[in-house]
């Protein structure tokens, strides 16, 4: 899942250019702040690389990445190599 925070987004649309798979699209109507928000148009294309999360200047995009995404079978589901310090 990809979440876009409407309070933080300023509408620069850099996520549309930086996404390698063209997941996002621009909505036609502006919200109450006058911002044409991006929305997730093709979610099945998303590979969860996380570039849009880093490149968003306003911390508005959140990609729900499973911490053990690189383990194919779920035999070691309790194994967390502590890739991120949270």
């Amino acid at each position, binding site marked *: 899942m990809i979440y876009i925070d409407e*309070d933080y987004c300023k509408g620069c649309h*850099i996520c549309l250019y930086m996404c390698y798979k063209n997941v996002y699209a621009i909505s036609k109507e502006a919200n109450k702040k006058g911002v044409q928000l991006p929305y997730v148009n093709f979610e099945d294309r998303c590979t969860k690389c996380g570039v849009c*999360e880093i490149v968003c200047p*306003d*911390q*508005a995009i*959140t990609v729900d990445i499973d911490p053990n995404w690189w383990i194919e079978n779920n035999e070691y589901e309790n194994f967390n190599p502590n890739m991120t310090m*949270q």
Partner: protein
Amino acid sequence: MSKPNRFIPYLREDRLPHIFCLGCGNGSIMNAFLAGMEKAEMDFENIAMVSGIGCSSRIPGYVKCDSLHSTHGRALSFATGLKVSNPDLDVVVFTGDGDCASIGGNHLIHAARRNINLTVICINNNIYGMTGGQISPTSPKGSFGTTAPYGTEDNPFNLAELVATAGATYSARWTTSHIENVVTSIKTALKNPGFSFVEVVSQCPTYYGRKNKLRTPTAMAVTLKVNSVLKSKAQNMSPKALEGKIVVGEFANKSKAEFTDNIEKLVQAKSGGKKVINSAFEAEL
């Protein structure tokens, strides 16, 4: 319902959303620094951030760690004092191009010459953004600004090569369109014992873009990506073909004796292992 953002735990949430303009690259570089810090497995409590004056120097105000907002151009001097008095800290300096190249140019050269263990992230947006769009030392030849209505004729500063020549152990240049390389470079710079310099060419749609017919943030990001050439490819290109291009890559990656280690050795040799000032974390001060 929605999951909180990955970088919100590191930021002062009561100050968000930040005051950077629409499409400014400073927010992306703040995210890239936090992601690189996670990858390098640094202790977030042990990091001190130092900044000078400018748009990019507002970044430490949004990060939830110890920070020092110093005078214009003297961020590296303050950071040197902080690092020498307390060598256990991981000092990170955020500067802009006006702060780092024009008024603080000598501080930059001599910090690189001493090879003190600092991490400097220079956000280069090719213009003085905060004061109204004047031409800076890193503006490309032929670009327009408030003080150059017919286009500037000066040659720009090449900061990453300058620092590599001055004796830094790590020096790299990337743009905001190569954000994954920025994260990897910041990770290497944080781990490197010695002076490490990462120059990130950023977009400024409000002033640089308005004067140079690149009004939208997307147009500026496309221009950065199209105009950048990798260093290994640029070695075989003629100087005429390289005009107006941004050479990206790593310019130095070596190892050398470090400044605070040298001071430690001198103190050990001259005063028999008894330092005048110990670390600030020790209680016996």
